[in-house]
Structures are given as structure tokens and as C-alpha cells.
């Protein structure tokens, strides 16, 4: 449980600065430091166990189905990193309080820092690979916030975005790698994965896992060729850089290498990828660190270089090299954090970070100079400082790398070259900045910073010295326990001594120191050499590439989504054609085993009329009213076809819908252009005709193929159970209101929604109202002919009676709620047409929306009612009653449901048509207005 506190305390601590934002800065800093300090205390409390070889663990099931649990561990490696993160984090909190100017919100910085700290601790303590990945991505996100802290600066925003893109993309690769590991092992728990290390290494997926995981590590640790984001992350406030680039963020990458070391290392592939990447990064970073004129730029590239060194050490596949890598992680964190803070002080007191202007600061800030000198010397690997120890081990290990065969000598040679450059840029940081003449037109007159701003550096420099002079005493336990986790086994005997006698590594160190001084003396020649190359700003290159990607995406989007319905239809049709076409190609023979039934003259006539009317609709489409009339012929013929093939329900429905549709389209046409101007080119028409024909052929073939083959229908069940189970003889209706009642409920809901949507669409619609018909004749003044008015009025009660009849008999004979509803609607619409909207609304003074809503409600409640009797939704029950004249009917709950259907159909249809029709009235005076 206390382990969980180490992670949770900084998270809770993120709230502290936000709540205490109005306190004085000093108090704010102290309050913020409380939570991480307690967490550090807990971590130190657990150190004894860790040194004794135990691994405290914590396990809380979270999303166990996915293999993701809240599992934490505190082994030696975790302990090392937790101490670094929390320890340096606390120093950074103190330092920020003095660094940040009064205009910037200290509370915001603290809050982000604490969130970031939580994420980092989460990574190093996670006992579950997926959990580790979650925290990994959290560091990407929170570092984005930190790097972009000065969000008013374009540089900061772009730098933050670049860091997020690169590390975030690497994080996705890492996730993929972790998922593959989970696939191989069957678990994401670290112990399980560790136990299956051999299985992973011998799996044929091993190269995939390795590359994916390394992509994650290399992007995070700014390894070549992903190093470019790190220098631009320097637009963050210096305390943030000091934290991100010493103990955290970039160290997360090498942490991953260390964590995965027992699982993935030991193969040739690991050696080649990891060590060469590390070597390239080491040299690349060192060279550019020497070339940079920006104080933080020097440190940024030296960070890249040192991360390359650590990566190289882990790549050697040797136990001692891993130990050396861990030692260098500690050493680099201490000296780099102090150097960044020193650079921050210089920047803070001088107002610039340009090395060409900064000279001779020793006289203004002697104390800071000494601190920076010690830290730099450690970075250069001067004896008696911690950097010397790890560098010495590094040189020793480079001599042992044998995998390159005859060229193995190259590795120590290049390692020494890296050492030379490292000495040169360390020297430059000291000599060029603090000595070497007088400062040139600085914006401020430099002086020593406030006392406590130097305290964090003093503490770190003290650690550098202590580790450097008394390594066995200070650091051995921590290093051994961390090595034990990285090696997952016994740690080789090693001595952390300053003096190992005269040997090759010492000689290499000597060469590096002497060579470094030489290179530094010749630096101006190197500068002029470097100037021959065109400097490329990685930020601009990155932004340009991103922009190119965005443009590409936009172009490809535009080619699909160009706002033209025709284009979308084209793609849709082509896709449909492709898939159905493939299906048809697989059929050996179009006609099936059935003999075709003979057809008579009536059927032929019907088919010919239907076909001609369909063709007519398409051909005359530019004369819209003609086309519409043709369409109505097709509709009527369809209705007849239904009647011919023994589907009276369908025929009735189609007929009623046909009437309603035609009235609707006529009304709509009134407000739309009456003709379609000729617009399509001949080529376009050709293309569409071909496409349509292909589609028609495919549909016809498909239909024919199915019609001539036997069907296995589930309808026999419905036929057999309609009476006993649904209490009705009309199977179609029983299916609608009983067997598939839930579908019907959905469908009437859609109907109601469509009605409502149309009601809203018509709201405050601006209309183009034609004043005359196509040929310029004005509209007939006699809007409501007497005969029609009289007939329709007489017809209404009859029609209502018929619809009641159809409704009631629907369960046993053709009919039902749908048809009855449509008949009622048609009768009322006829009244509208005959007498006008004003008159009708005076007589039928009820709004249609509630009718439709009530319909859906009744149907829904009927279904829900069966719950009360302990049956599933929409279970129907029924009893038989005899009603005079109509005869015996079942009064089933299904009837109630059908009533809901009826009301919805009436309501929705009238909502659509009456509201549309109403639009015609306010614009034109009615004749009967009196």
C-alpha cells in the first residue's frame, strides 16, 4: 500500500499548488515540496528491503480482462530511478521558485511538474507492461505541457508539439511491441514476462518485438535519428529542461532499455541495433555540442551524446557494461541537472545564453563558476569526480566488445573520440563562459544569484564529489541492487575504485583529456569547417514535413469528399457492383434448378408498362412534373404486382403510400424548380448510363438466380405458430405486431423521428415561390373546387369507418395498423386539398406531433406491460370476443400495439404533409377568406 502512495502522493501534490496559488512564492514552493518529500521518505524507508534483495510489490486488479492491473514493484532499478526523480525533482522545485519571473504562474509550473513526476514514477514502478505504457504516454503528454509552458512563444509551442509527436509516435510503437510480447507470453505482468524471456528471444516474432520496443526507447531518449526533437525542447523554462533532460523524460528511454535488458538482450540483433544507434548518437551529439553557440544548446546536444553512451553500454550485451550504464545514468543525472541549473543562473543573471557574448563571468559570479566547473569536470570525466568512474568503465567495456571481428578495435577508438569531444565541449562550457576575456554587451550586469538558487546545485555537486571520491561507500549498494534487477541474476564482482593501476582504460582517459584540450584550442578552425554546411533547422524541416502530410491527407480526403453527391454515389455504386459482381462470378450457372413458371398476357403487359414507365421517369427527368407522373405509374404497377402475387397487405400499403408520396412530391415540386436545366455532358451521361445498366444487370441477374433456386424459409414457423402463439390468422400482421414486434417498434419510432425532423426543417424556411406555372400561366383562382370539397367532406366519415374496419380485422384478414393509418391520413389529406389548410385546421384542431408521440408511447408501453406479468418485453396475450357486425375478433395486446402503429402512422404522415402544405398558405391570399 505504501508503494501506491509513492505514485499517488505527487499526483495529489499536483493539486496543492493550484489551491495555494495565491500564497507567497516561498510558501507555495514549500507546500508543493511536501508531497514528493513524503514520497521520497517512503521510498528511502523501503531501501533497506531492496538492498537485502527483496522486491516489495503491490497488486490491485483493474481491468484484468485486458491484462491490465494496477501492479507496482520496487526493485533495485525502480529504487534508483525513484530516488533520482524525487530527489532532483525536489531540488527543481526549490530552484524554480527563484528562476521564474513574477509574471509567470509558478503554480501552473509546479502543477505540471508534479503531474510529470507522477507519470515518471509510474513508469519506473509499474509491474505490468501495459500499466507502464499508460504512464509512458502520460509523460509524453505532461512533457508537452511543460515544454510548452511559455505557450505565448511560437518556438515553445512548436517544440512541444514536435516532442509530443515524436515521443508519442514512439509510444505507439512501444504499445505494439508490448502487445506482441503479451501475445507471446500470455501475460503483461513483469514477472511472467521475465520468466518467459527465453521464449520471447526464441520466438520468430522476436525481431518485431525488439524493433518496436526499441523505437519507443530511442524516440524517448532522443537517439539518432530521432534526436532532433530534444534541442527544440530547450524552449522550455530551464528548470524544466534540467528535470526533463537529466533525471527524467529522456531517461525513460534508457530506463526501458534497462527494464527490457533481461528480456530482450543477449542476441546479436540487440547488439547491432542498440550499440550502433548508441555509438552514432554519442558522436553526433558530442560534435554538435561543440558547435553550438547557445549555452542550453550545448547542454542539449551533450545530453544526446551521453544518452548515446548509456545506450551503447546497454548494447554491449555484457553484464559489466550494464552496470556501467546504470552508474552513468546516476552520474549523468547529477552533473547534467546541476549544469542546466548553472546555465539557467547565467541566463537569469546575464539575460542571454549566447556563448559568443558570455565571457569572463568568473569575476561577477565566482561561486557559481566553481560549481559549474566541478559539474563540467565531472561531465568531462576528470578523476575524483563521478563522471570519471563511469567513463573509465565505459572505456574498459568498449575494449571487450568483440562482435565486429577484425574491426572490433573501432569501438574503443570511437569511444575515445567521443571522450575527446566530451572533454572539449565541457572545457568550452567553462573556459568560454566564465573566463576568456570580458563579457560583450550583455543586457544585464551579472551578479551572484540569490543564495537558495545555488543550493540545489551545491547539493548535486556535493553528490558528484562524494560519489567520485568514495564510490563504494556512497553508491555501491544502490548500484548492486539496481544491477541485480537489470541482469535478473547474480551481479558480477566489481570494484568501484578510483585507482585501478596503469591500464588501457586509464590511457584512453588520458588521451581523451589531452585530446580534448587540443580540440578546444583548435575550435575556431572547426567552427569555420562546420560553417560550410548549411545549417538546417530541424523544427522547420519537421513542420514542413507535417504540413506536407496534412496536405496529402487533405488532398486524398478532397478527392473522395468533394461535396458532390454524384461522386459519393459513384464510389458507393462501384463498391456495390464490385462485391455483388464477385459473388455472381463465383456462381457457375445463372439459372437454378427450378423450371420457370409460364407467364400470361396480363403479366407481360404489366411488366412492359412498368418498364416503360420506369424508363420514362428517367428519360423525362428534366421535365419534372412528367417524370413524377411516370413515377406514379411505376408505383401503381408495383402495387398491382403485389396484388397479383398474393400479397394483399402489401398492395394496400403500397397503394396508400403511393398516394401520399405523390401528393408530397407534387407539393415539394411546387417550391423547387419545375425543370432541370441540361447540365450533364454527353460523356457524363454515357458514364451514368453504363453504370446504371451495369447495376440493373447485376440486380436482374441476382434476382433471377435467386428466383430459380429453392429457398429455405423460416416462414413455416410463423405460419404454424401464428394462431396458437400470436392469436391471429393474418400471418403478415402477426409477424409485424407480435413475432417481430420489436422491429416494428423501432420502425414506427423512425417514422416519428422523420416526421419531427421534417417539422423542424420546415421551421422558418425561406421559400422560392413561383408565381405562375411552367408556361407562364398564373395559378387558377378557383383553389377549392366545390365538387371536390363536397365529396371529400362526405368521404371522410366513410374513409374513417373503413380504416377502423381495416384496423380491427387486420389481425385475421389483410389489413392492420399500417394500412388503416395510411387510409385515415389519406382521407384527411384529401380534406386539406379540397378545403384548404385554414378551413381544415379549424375543424381538426389537434396537433399531429402528440398523436405520433402517443403512438410510439402506446406501442412501447404495451411492450413494457408484459414485464408486469413477468414476461419478456412485447409478449402478447389475447382472448376472443364477439362484436356484432364485425364478428369474432381477438382482443389481443397485439391490437393495442397495432393501435400505437396506427396513431404513429397517422400522426407522422400528417405532420409531414400538413406542415408542408401549410407553407403554401401564408404567402398567398385564399379565396374563401371572409
Amino acid at each position, binding site marked *: 500500500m505504501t508503494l501506491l502512495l509513492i505514485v499517488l502522493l505527487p499526483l495529489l501534490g499536483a493539486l496543492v499548488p493550484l489551491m495555494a496559488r495565491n500564497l507567497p512564492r516561498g510558501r507555495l514552493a514549500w507546500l508543493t515540496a511536501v508531497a514528493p518529500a513524503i514520497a521520497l521518505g517512503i521510498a528511502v524507508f523501503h531501501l533497506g528491503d531492496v538492498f537485502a534483495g527483496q522486491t516489495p510489490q503491490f497488486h490491485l486488479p483493474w481491468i484484468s480482462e485486458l491484462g491490465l492491473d494496477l501492479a507496482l514493484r520496487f526493485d533495485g532499478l525502480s529504487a534508483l530511478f525513484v530516488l533520482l526523480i524525487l530527489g532532483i525533482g525536489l531540488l527543481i522545485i526549490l530552484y524554480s521558485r527563484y528562476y521564474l519571473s513574477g509574471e509567470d504562474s509558478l503554480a501552473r509550473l509546479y502543477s505540471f511538474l508534479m503531474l510529470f513526476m507522477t507519470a515518471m514514477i509510474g513508469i519506473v514502478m509499474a509491474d505490468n507492461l501495459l500499466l507502464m505504457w499508460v504512464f509512458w504516454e502520460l509523460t509524453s503528454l505532461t512533457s508537452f505541457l511543460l515544454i510548452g509552458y511559455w505557450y505565448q512563444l511560437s518556438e515553445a509551442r512548436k517544440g512541444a508539439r514536435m516532442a509530443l509527436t515524436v515521443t508519442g509516435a514512439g509510444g505507439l510503437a512501444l504499445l505494439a511491441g508490448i502487445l506482441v510480447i503479451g501475445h507471446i507470453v500470455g501475460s503483461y505482468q513483469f514477472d511472467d514476462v521475465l520468466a518467459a524471456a527465453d521464449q520471447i528471444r526464441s520466438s520468430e516474432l522476436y525481431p518485431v518485438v525488439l524493433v518496436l520496443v526499441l523505437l519507443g526507447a530511442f524516440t524517448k531518449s532522443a537517439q539518432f535519428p530521432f534526436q532532433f526533437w530534444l534541442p527544440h525542447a530547450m524552449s522550455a523554462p530551464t528548470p524544466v529542461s534540467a528535470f526533463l533532460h537529466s533525471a527524467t523524460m529522456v531517461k525513460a528511454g534508457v530506463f526501458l532499455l534497462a527494464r527490457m535488458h533481461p528480456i530482450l538482450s543477449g542476441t546479436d540483433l540487440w547488439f547491432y541495433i542498440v550499440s550502433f544507434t548508441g555509438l552514432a548518437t554519442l558522436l553526433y551529439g558530442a560534435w554538435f555540442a561543440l558547435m553550438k553557440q547557445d549555452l542550453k544548446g550545448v547542454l542539449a546536444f551533450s545530453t544526446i551524446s551521453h544518452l548515446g553512451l548509456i545506450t551503447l553500454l546497454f548494447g554491449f550485451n555484457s553484464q559489466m557494461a550494464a552496470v556501467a550504464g546504470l552508474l552513468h545514468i546516476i552520474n549523468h543525472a547529477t552533473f547534467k541537472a546541476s549544469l542546466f541549473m548553472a546555465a539557467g543562473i547565467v541566463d537569469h543573471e546575464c539575460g542571454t545564453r549566447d556563448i559568443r557574448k558570455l565571457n569572463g563571468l568568473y569575476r561577477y559570479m565566482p561561486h557559481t563558476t566553481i560549481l559549474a566547473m566541478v559539474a563540467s569536470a565531472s561531465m568531462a570525466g576528470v578523476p575524483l569526480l563521478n563522471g570519471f568512474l563511469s567513463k573509465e568503465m565505459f572505456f574498459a567495456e568498449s575494449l571487450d566488445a568483440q562482435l565486429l571481428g577484425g574491426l572490433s578495435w573501432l569501438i574503443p577508438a570511437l569511444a575515445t573520440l567521443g571522450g575527446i569531444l566530451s572533454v572539449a565541449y565541457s572545457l568550452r562550457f567553462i573556459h568560454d563562459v566564465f573566463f576568456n576575456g570580458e563579457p560583450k554587451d550583455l543586457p544585464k550586469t551579472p551578479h551572484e544569484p540569490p543564495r537558495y538558487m545555488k543550493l540545489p546545485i551545491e547539493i548535486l555537486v556535493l553528490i558528484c564529489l562524494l560519489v567520485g571520491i568514495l564510490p563504494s561507500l556512497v553508491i555501491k549498494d544502490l548500484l548492486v541492487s539496481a544491477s541485480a534487477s537489470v541482469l535478473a541474476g547474480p551481479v558480477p564482482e566489481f570494484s568501484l575504485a578510483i585507482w585501478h593501476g596503469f591500464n588501457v582504460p586509464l590511457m584512453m582517459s588520458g588521451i581523451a583529456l589531452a585530446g580534448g584540450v587540443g580540440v578546444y584550442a583548435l575550435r575556431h578552425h572547426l567552427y569555420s569547417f562546420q560553417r560550410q554546411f548549411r545549417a538546417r533547422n530541424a523544427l522547420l524541416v519537421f513542420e514542413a514535413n507535417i504540413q506536407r502530410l496534412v496536405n496529402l491527407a487533405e488532398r486524398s480526403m478532397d478527392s473522395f469528399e468533394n461535396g458532390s453527391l454524384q461522386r459519393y454515389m459513384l464510389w458507393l455504386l462501384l463498391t456495390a457492383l464490385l462485391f455483388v459482381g464477385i459473388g455472381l462470378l463465383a456462381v457457375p450457372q445463372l439459372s437454378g434448378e427450378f423450371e420457370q413458371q409460364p407467364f400470361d398476357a396480363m403479366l407481360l403487359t404489366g411488366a412492359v408498362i412498368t418498364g416503360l414507365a420506369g*424508363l420514362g421517369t428517367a428519360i423525362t427527368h428534366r421535365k419534372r412534373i412528367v417524370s413524377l407522373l411516370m413515377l406514379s405509374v411505376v408505383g401503381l404497377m408495383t402495387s398491382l404486382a403485389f396484388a397479383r402475387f398474393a400479397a394483399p397487405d402489401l398492395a394496400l400499403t403500397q397503394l396508400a403510400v403511393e398516394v401520399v408520396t405523390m401528393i408530397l412530391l407534387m407539393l415539394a415540386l411546387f417550391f423547387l424548380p419545375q425543370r432541370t436545366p441540361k447540365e450533364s455532358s454527353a460523356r457524363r451521361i454515357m458514364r451514368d448510363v453504363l453504370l446504371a445498366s451495369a447495376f440493373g444487370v447485376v440486380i436482374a441477374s441476382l434476382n*433471377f438466380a435467386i428466383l430459380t433456386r429453392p429457398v429455405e424459409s423460416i416462414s413455416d414457423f410463423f405460419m404454424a405458430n401464428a394462431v396458437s402463439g400470436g392469436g391471429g390468422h393474418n400471418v403478415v400482421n402477426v409477424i409485424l405486431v407480435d413475432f417481430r414486434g420489436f422491429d416494428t417498434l423501432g420502425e414506427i419510432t423512425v417514422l416519428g423521428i422523420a416526421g419531427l425532423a421534417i417539422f423542424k426543417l420546415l421551421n422558418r424556411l425561406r421559400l422560392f415561390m413561383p408565381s405562375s406555372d411552367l408556361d407562364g400561366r398564373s395559378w387558377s383562382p378557383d383553389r377549392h373546387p366545390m365538387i371536390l370539397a363536397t365529396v371529400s367532406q362526405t368521404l371522410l366519415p366513410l374513409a374513417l369507418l373503413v380504416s377502423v374496419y381495416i384496423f380491427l380485422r387486420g389481425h385475421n384478414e389483410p389489413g392492420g395498423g399500417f394500412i388503416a393509418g395510411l387510409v385515415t391520413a389519406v382521407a384527411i389529406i384529401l380534406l386539406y386539398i379540397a378545403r384548404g389548410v385554414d378551413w381544415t385546421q379549424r375543424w381538426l384542431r389537434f396537433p399531429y406531433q402528440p398523436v405520433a408521440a402517443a403512438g410510439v408511447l402506446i406501442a412501447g408501453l404495451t411492450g413494457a406491460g408484459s414485464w408486469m406479468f413477468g414476461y419478456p418485453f412485447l409478449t402478447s396475450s389475447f382472448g376472443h370476443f364477439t362484436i356484432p357486425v364485425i364478428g369474432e375478433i381477438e382482443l389481443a395486446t397485439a391490437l393495442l400495439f397495432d393501435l400505437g402503429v396506427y396513431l404513429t402512422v397517422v400522426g407522422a404522415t400528417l405532420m409531414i404533409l400538413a406542415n408542408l402544405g401549410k407553407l403554401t398558405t401564408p404567402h398567398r391570399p385564399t379565396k374563401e377568406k371572409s
Partner: protein
Amino acid sequence: MEALYATTTGLLAACGVYLTLRGRTFPVVVGLTLLSYSVNLFLFSMGGLAMHGNPAVVGAGTPAADPLPQALVLTAIVIGFAMTAFVVILAMRARGDLGSDHVNGNRLDVSREDGK
């Protein structure tokens, strides 16, 4: 007879598709309606065509038509009406708000009024 039926369905589908490929709203709506007739006929025939069948009413005699496609098509007809209505009103609204009844992405063209 099956060939005749299938040909009619295919012809209606082709005409419908041709119309939906036009660049103005109204032909597209008409095309969709035509297409829905075709699709309804197609779906209806999935249970086989009963030349001499009886309605799917228990006790009306055998062979009876397949009730399941009928039930499906019945709701399809009603929903089809609702969708046609929605699309055509949308077209009106688009013309009212955008001043054009184009659906070919050519939004700048203000339609020439009423085919004059």
C-alpha cells in the same frame, strides 16, 4: 415468368440509379423512390413468386405466399415514404438556405429560376 420479373426489377433499378446520379435534388429524390420500388420488388420475391398462391392467412388455402418478406417489405414501404419525405424536404430547405438545388458540389451556382 421469373426472367420477366427479374428484368423488370433490374430495369427499374437501372433507371433509379441513373436518376440518383443527376446533379440536382429533385431527380435524385425521384431516383431514390424508383430504386426503392425496385428494391421492394426484389425483397418481396425472396420468398419465391406464388403465381397461384393464396395470401399468407392461416386457413386461406395452400400454397400460401411467404409472409416474412411481406412483413419486411411492408415496413420498408412506410419507412421508404418517411425517408423520401425527409430527403425532399431537406432538398427544399437546402434550396431555401443555399439558393441552389445542386448536389454536385457546385454550391456557388445560384440556380436559374424555374427553368426559364
